[in-house]
């Protein structure tokens, strides 16, 4: 039975909510509130479930491939191509068919999950970290620091990232760059992705900090003699958690797509390492005769990006219900 107190609050209000325990009113923690709202978003939950499934697949790829009785992702078998060199289609032994080298497409899609998640998660984590630090410094200190960092972000945002990727791929492809520090492969893709995406987070954080630094709790903290670093990281940062989580979750699919695009252009993950982007690139010339080679990694990419986007939307609704309204 409701006491009626909760009804007095705006529906979905983010200030207070109360548990109705038969007359006792118990305040919910922010986490409980978040989970309660997220649970109500079935699309987000399904997306979360799919992402968890992907993570499991990625972590246990060798085991999954073995259990399914598939050959490894790099096992070539030209006997599985016809006399024109065209790959054979789906069969019971190779449910997703094989590619031009007779490699099992399903096995490669499964292993490709690793690359996509690694790039998506690690790339996003690093760019978020950089973006948060730079954005906080710019927003908190204002003045010349803000000007300098903001212009720097503008410059970075103006870099044509695909061209940068192609250039780095050509220049550092064989012997690496910066005395071998920048090597082709996953590391350089993450590096390129971080360069491309951290300013987006940085700009958002800067804007939020600019308004938050004028709030009373910051004034109070400053009056109590807290240092700038403490104010930034102990007082302001926790209040930025919700938007950062939301934007990061939306950045992950962007990064996955960027990796796929770079791999498609031939400067990302290179064969024989399986990546959905390079699989799609390899499949493009023979799509007419081997649709499965493009369709299955394409579906995997589509579903993964969709899942992260839908989860991101769900997180946004759950963490910031005012926006949802």
């Amino acid at each position, binding site marked *: 039975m409701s006491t009626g107190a909760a009804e007095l609050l705006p529906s979905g209000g983010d200030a207070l909510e109360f548990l109705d325990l038969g007359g006792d009113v118990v305040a919910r923690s922010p986490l409980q509130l978040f989970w309660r709202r997220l649970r109500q978003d079935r699309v987000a939950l399904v997306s979360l479930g799919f992402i968890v499934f992907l993570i499991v697949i990625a972590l246990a790829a060798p085991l999954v491939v073995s259990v399914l009785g598939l050959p490894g992702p*790099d096992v*070539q078998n*030209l006997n599985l*191509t*016809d*006399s*024109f*060199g*065209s790959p054979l289609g789906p069969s019971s032994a190779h449910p997703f068919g094989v590619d*031009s*080298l007779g490699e099992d497409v399903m096995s490669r899609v499964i292993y490709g999950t690793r690359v996509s998640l690694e790039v998506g998660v690690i790339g996003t984590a690093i760019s978020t970290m950089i973006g948060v630090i730079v954005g906080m410094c710019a927003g908190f200190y204002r003045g010349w620091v803000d000007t300098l960092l903001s212009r720097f972000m503008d410059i970075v945002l103006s870099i044509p990232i695909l061209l940068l990727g192609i250039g780095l*791929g*050509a220049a550092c*492809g*064989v*012997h690496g760059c910066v005395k071998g520090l920048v090597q*082709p492969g996953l590391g350089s893709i993450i590096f390129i992705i971080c360069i491309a995406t951290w300013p987006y987070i940085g700009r958002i954080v800067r804007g939020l900090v600019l308004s938050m630094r004028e709030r009373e709790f910051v004034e109070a903290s400053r009056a109590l003699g807290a240092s700038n670093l403490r104010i930034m990281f102990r007082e302001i940062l926790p209040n930025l958690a919700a938007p950062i989580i939301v934007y990061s979750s939306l950045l992950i699919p962007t990064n996955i797509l960027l990796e796929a695009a770079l791999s498609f252009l*031939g400067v990302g993950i*290179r*064969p*024989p390492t399986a990546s959905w982007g390079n699989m799609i690139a*390899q499949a493009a*010339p*023979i*799509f*007419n*005769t081997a649709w499965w080679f493009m369709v299955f990694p394409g579906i995997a990419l589509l579903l993964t990006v969709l899942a992260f986007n839908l989860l991101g939307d769900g997180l946004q609704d759950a963490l910031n219900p005012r926006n949802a309204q």
Partner: protein
Amino acid sequence: MRSIRTLAAVALAAGLALALAACGSSSSTSSTSTTASASSALSSSGYKSPLTEPLTGGKRGGSLQVLQEIDFEHLDPGIAYFSVDYAVVFATQRPLYSQKPNSSEATPDMAEGPPEISNGGKTVTVHIKQGIRFSPPVNREVTSEDVAYAIERGTNPDVANPYIASYFKAIEGEPTDMTGAPMKGIETPNKHEIVFHLTEPKGQLVADALVLPLTAAVPNEYAEKFDKNKPSDYANYEVATGPYMLKNNSEGKVLGIGYIPGKSATLVRNPNWNPKTDYRPAYLNEIDVKIGGTSSVIGRQVLEGSNVVQNESSVAQPNIRLAAEKFKSQLEISPGGGDHYIGVNNKVGPFKNIDLRKAFWAGLNRTALDKVKGGTLVTNVATHFIYPTINGFEQAGGLTGLKVDYNEHPEGDTAVAEKYIKLAGYPTGKYTGHELTTIVASTGDPFEEQAEIVQQTLKNLGFPVKLTLVETSTMYAKYCNVPKEEITVCPSVGWIADFPDPQTVLNITFNGTTIVPTGNVNWGQTNVPKINKAMAAAENVVGNEARANAWAKIDDELVEDAAAIPFDWDKQANIEGSDVNGVGDIWNVGEWDYSYTSLK
């Protein structure tokens, strides 16, 4: 070496590097013989082939539509060096000698007869036919001075012919700074005779090279003003001597009329062409080239169209398959597509050890490498370096090549590979050394797949491997053509000769004296004194048969040395519409010959 698109960078390099090309000697003939029997063996049965297409009896008239994805590079006969360009250049221009579609033998074209080589190989004399006239607006008869000017302008830096330094450097008085000035060694005693005086006895090489379009006549008084521009824009106003000409206006302007870059080219009959002076039938009235689109889409349009052909450096593999399965009569397979081999660094890295090179050769599944390119329809497993249609192919063992155990199993033989690894000092039969094998290959289909096969082979044999894929021009210009990069394996390299003498296939690519710091096309840096010496001797051999034998022996030695690993003798696929009697050739990478093609 002439450029097909995938080999374009090599072509440029070849131009720079073949200063050490060949020495000729006195001879009364320079014609090179076709290896028709070998080519027949290599043609794909059941499909059209340039070797079997009738060259006479075509229907006169009609307009042929040509669809091609890529634009021309150069239509100026003094610059053209790309197979797609050659299709137009050889329909509009007549060099001193040229080749019929089904033969790589040089046939007198503007020349009256075979070149006369005298003075110990230091003089070459050619007599020119009477009655050959330039197309409008020039209209006058061709003279020997026009041929002289055509060759001399090749050294004009604003024309910059890509192969003149390779084949015509021996001409007396050629300015070393390539200024385009008249050459002392080119004499025109009368209007129909041209004499080349050489500083070295390279008459055979110069005579063989007269099939190149640089020798197509250019009227000095007309072209000179265009050649003074930087760069020369003679191509925008060029006149023809062949059966067709690029459509032009009364002032001779071609640009925007007969050729619109990126869009179209229109070839019409040359009103001044005299069929009595030419061996070409020239059935068609007009050839309309449409440029642009996507090769795979164009291919389908052509197969389902009527009076249309596709002209590309290579037709998309799915369309070749489609043609083979549903439009068999519209598919032509030419055996003259050059060759591909794996460049293996003989100088540094693990493969400086000859036994490890042999192990690599033995363990490699060359059939698989060919299969990812389209299988036996467009490839033949290569067993040595002189490829079909080149003089000396049969003498070098024909299809089977030298009988050595590492060459006998194209599918790869692990046992033989392990035998040679053991001989190299690794008792387990696996390479246990620590030298990294760097592989740099070209992106795109089928090079990526081929590189992966090579990588897997080396891994299976125990080699630590690092594969890098880069764009084709980068692969050549930055890595495989640069010895100091010390790339261990270049699996995407290939070669096509400018004319069918075996020296043009083996000398620059395997002679140790041709190694240069950049633009190097001796990819393996093969530098075996015995082979170098044999090449020096073979350069002076006279006569086709003798030259074939001499260079075939060198080919054998290169196989014995496992200097590189040949895996593919290319066949070129061409597709045509249902109402076309297309005739391709065996000497221009199999491109269509518009002077022989007709409509049904």
